[in-house]
């Protein structure tokens, strides 16, 4: 069985852009399971069900959850306990990696840590690296290029940042794609059923403008690569 773990951001993004029907089609193409943690379910369904502005989107996501288009991983009680321990450890490590003169920067929360922890747990279980879909910038930078994240903080805080480089290795193994790469699959497989050459760019910009961290340069490069 193949698995893809979703953080909250990409699902919220798909929902806000009216792309949720694409998720079901993507899952068929993927021939595996789209997995979420309980923390992500809370963010994408339970919390917005209480906010009138997002209630309809939450109901749609709840429907997708009920239909198992997105689902929880099938874990035993023991594995759930282990997941919690890994989540807390990752959060602790991440939040003790970058230090300003005034103290450590607390970067990530339970939601992001839990998604990463699930990937570790499933790797242990299935002996395979399980990729994640993450739209937000910080987790992705922490995983793929923590030195750039250090530079980013130095630029933003206009101060020197000290790092515990040994912590980097905790995050080095994860594989990340974004909602914009899923848009590429939608376009490539013509799942959107819009025969217009602008469809990919339109989708990618729509996702960018609802929180996916992708630069204009990357979008241009993507367009060039798929030509």
């Amino acid at each position: 069985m193949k698995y893809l773990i979703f953080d909250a951001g990409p699902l919220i993004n798909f929902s806000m852009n009216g792309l949720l029907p694409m998720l079901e089609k993507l899952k068929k193409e993927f021939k595996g399971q789209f997995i979420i943690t309980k923390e992500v379910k809370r963010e994408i369904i339970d919390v917005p069900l209480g906010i009138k502005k997002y209630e309809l989107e939450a109901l749609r996501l709840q429907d997708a959850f009920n239909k198992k288009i997105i689902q929880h991983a099938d874990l035993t009680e023991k594995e759930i306990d282990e997941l919690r321990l890994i989540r807390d450890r990752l959060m602790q490590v991440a939040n003790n990696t970058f230090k300003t003169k005034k103290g450590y920067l607390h970067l990530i929360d339970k939601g992001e840590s839990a998604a990463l922890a699930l990937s570790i747990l499933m790797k242990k279980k299935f002996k395979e690296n399980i990729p994640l879909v993450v739209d937000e910038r910080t987790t992705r930078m922490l995983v793929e290029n923590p030195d750039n994240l250090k530079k980013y903080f130095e630029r933003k805080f206009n101060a020197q940042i000290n790092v515990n480089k040994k912590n980097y290795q905790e995050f080095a193994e994860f594989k990340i794609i974004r909602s914009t790469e899923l848009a590429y699959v939608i376009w490539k497989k013509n799942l959107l059923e819009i025969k217009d050459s602008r469809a990919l760019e339109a989708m990618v910009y729509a996702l960018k403008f609802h929180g996916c961290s992708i630069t204009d340069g990357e979008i241009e490069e993507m367009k060039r690569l798929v030509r």
Partner: protein
Amino acid sequence: MIEGKNHILKILEGVKLALDEKNYIKLKNLSNESIEHASIHQDPDVISITVLIYALSKLIEREKDCKENCQPSESWSLFFRKFKNNIIDMTAALQKDNSEKFRNEVKANRQLLENVSGKLKEYISDVFQKARINKASKMYEQGISMGKTASILGISIWELAEYTGSKPEEISITVTLPISKRLQLTKELFEL
């Protein structure tokens, strides 16, 4: 002891002056200054102050509009006066190193809103919620994750995603993997 006490005191002193002048631009700048401190320390009370300074700047900026649309000027003036006194009390508590009193004053500030009624309450609540989202977007921009930021500011990731998406940032160091490699990974996953 409140971490970064001197910084907060400096900000609150600035707020008092800006309030006397009804200078909302100065207030906005002070709020932006304090968000950096809030991003590092993540002290809930300092975050509350950051939000309230920004909300205050918006309330002053739109004072005329508010008076015309939602409330007799009496309620507005009373709210504004109490708000100002509260800032003075917060400053005094900090100067005396009385962190308990300081935190009580921050709490009292939140309660000021609870005691307002009618359209003015709705209006002020709306301004505060927008202020929280604005400050969250600044915190995310500084590199704190979306989940962490939303949780600190007490908003949903939905609200944050909508707002930050409308103000996308272009910094090349945020590109951490060539798009060709990420697309390759995606192709392998979907057997394209």
